[in-house]
């Protein structure tokens, strides 16, 4: 089994200090931060989770060392569910996308990447890393992808779904070019809903956390339409786009609408050669968590079939967050389990057939 959204905690953002270049180390030591010492510099979202966003049976960041957090992750996730590979997605690192100072944002991303490569990947052969970049600095992001994108433990480029503009925009071309050159998938994880980034809902900000959380998937929809319409997959046919934690059941409805509108107005995007749904099926992958939970699972399965779920879905638990999906209780059609829990991610991230001490189970 491969878990495609696993958050590796730090004890405090000060873990990055040894990895920051001097001017930005000074900025983090002496500069303003949004919280007590150890807080990570970012523009916070306007919705405050009423309970904190971690499972309460997981040590809080400040209550453990990086090793303690790894030990918890190993016991509560890797060993408990016999995970072959866990794709690390950082904790707050993707929030660099919210900072107006794009150079500081890129410096923090570089420091996170070096910390992750030094302090996480060597701990366990089952861990793989995501390279965090600051999308508001596309040239800096490209440079970072070329700097460490060929590390054998790095399997994708990662940024938040919160963004200044949707990711197909030519503004981001340097980032896509670099990812294509290194043959790395580009992933967007739910987050970055603050600071310089656009409101996640077009009609204005929601009020409550649970209301907002359910609607953050709207940012995923915007990126799907944008990367298809701008022809990212025509120009970079080897690139895959991965949406993490955005929900999945909305995808077929969006693709039906995109296909219909494209057929009528295709003259706007003459660089496209296929239907939006065809690009999506080949190039876009979505992680399952938090999988929608209708009263009748068959209602969900009908929708998942309409989006070729067996091909495009990647299992994710989101450990250690409050909306964790347990792989033994999420409901997927049995015939898909081998692909969704394992095969699709193994192909996408080009992972070997077996790893470490884990079994090659199918969940």
């Amino acid at each position, binding site marked *: 089994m491969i878990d495609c959204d696993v958050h590796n905690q730090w004890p405090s953002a000060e873990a990055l200090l040894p990895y920051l270049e001097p001017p930005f180390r000074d900025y983090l030591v002496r500069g303003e931060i949004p919280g007590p010492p150890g807080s990570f510099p970012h523009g916070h979202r306007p919705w405050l989770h009423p*309970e904190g966003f971690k499972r*309460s*049976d997981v040590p809080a960041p400040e209550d453990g060392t990086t090793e303690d957090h790894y030990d918890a992750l190993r016991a509560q996730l890797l060993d408990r569910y016999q995970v072959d590979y866990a794709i690390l997605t950082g904790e707050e690192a993707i929030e660099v996308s919210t900072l107006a100072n794009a150079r500081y944002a890129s410096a923090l991303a570089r420091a996170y990447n070096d910390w992750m490569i030094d302090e996480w990947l060597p701990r366990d052969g089952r861990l793989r890393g995501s390279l965090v970049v600051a999308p508001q600095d596309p040239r800096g992001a490209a440079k970072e992808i070329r700097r460490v994108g060929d590390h054998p433990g790095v399997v994708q480029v990662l940024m938040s779904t919160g963004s200044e503009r949707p990711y197909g925009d030519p503004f981001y071309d340097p980032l896509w070019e670099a990812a294509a050159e290194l043959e790395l998938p580009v992933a967007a994880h739910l987050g970055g809903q603050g600071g310089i980034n656009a409101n996640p809902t077009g009609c204005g900000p929601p009020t409550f956390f649970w209301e907002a959380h359910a609607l953050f998937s709207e940012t995923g929809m915007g990126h799907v339409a944008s990367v298809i319409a701008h022809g990212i997959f025509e120009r970079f046919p080897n690139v895959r786009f991965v949406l993490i934690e955005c929900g999945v059941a909305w995808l077929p409805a969006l693709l039906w609408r995109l296909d219909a509108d494209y057929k009528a107005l295709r003259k706007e995007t003459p660089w496209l050669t296929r239907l939006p749904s065809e690009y999506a099926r080949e190039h876009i992958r979505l992680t399952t968590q938090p999988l929608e939970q209708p009263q009748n699972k068959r209602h969900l399965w009908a929708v998942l079939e309409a989006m070729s779920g067996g091909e495009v879905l990647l299992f994710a638990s989101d450990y250690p967050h409050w909306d964790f999906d*347990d792989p033994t209780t999420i409901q997927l059609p049995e015939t898909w389990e081998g692909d969704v829990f394992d095969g699709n991610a193994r192909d996408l991230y080009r992972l070997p057939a077996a790893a470490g001490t884990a079994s090659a189970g199918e969940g």
Partner: protein
Amino acid sequence: MSGGRFRVCEANELAPGQRLVVDLGGRSVGVFNVEGSFYALHNRCPHRGGALCLGPVTGVTRSTDDFEYVYADEGRILRCAWHGWEFEIETGRSLADPKLKAKTFPVTVEDGEVIVHI
């Protein structure tokens, strides 16, 4: 797993507001002292199997007709460690879904000892 009578602790070892999570015959059980009364719940959430009894003990915003916040039942609500679903410690009743109930076990205090009956 086996049932029966399980001595958990001396009653005066578990003060009001405190809890113990113990293995009773192969079953993980949370024992709670709520204002001097003892309750026991299976440490397995009926929602998704999470570690129910490791979550925080809280109060709850009571349902109102007036769009206001009224905080009630402080110390009587258990919030699952995984997804935060709320349960009444005394009854196991789910506040989120009336069809769900956390498994509870009878508790007695005999000769100053807390006994859970499974």
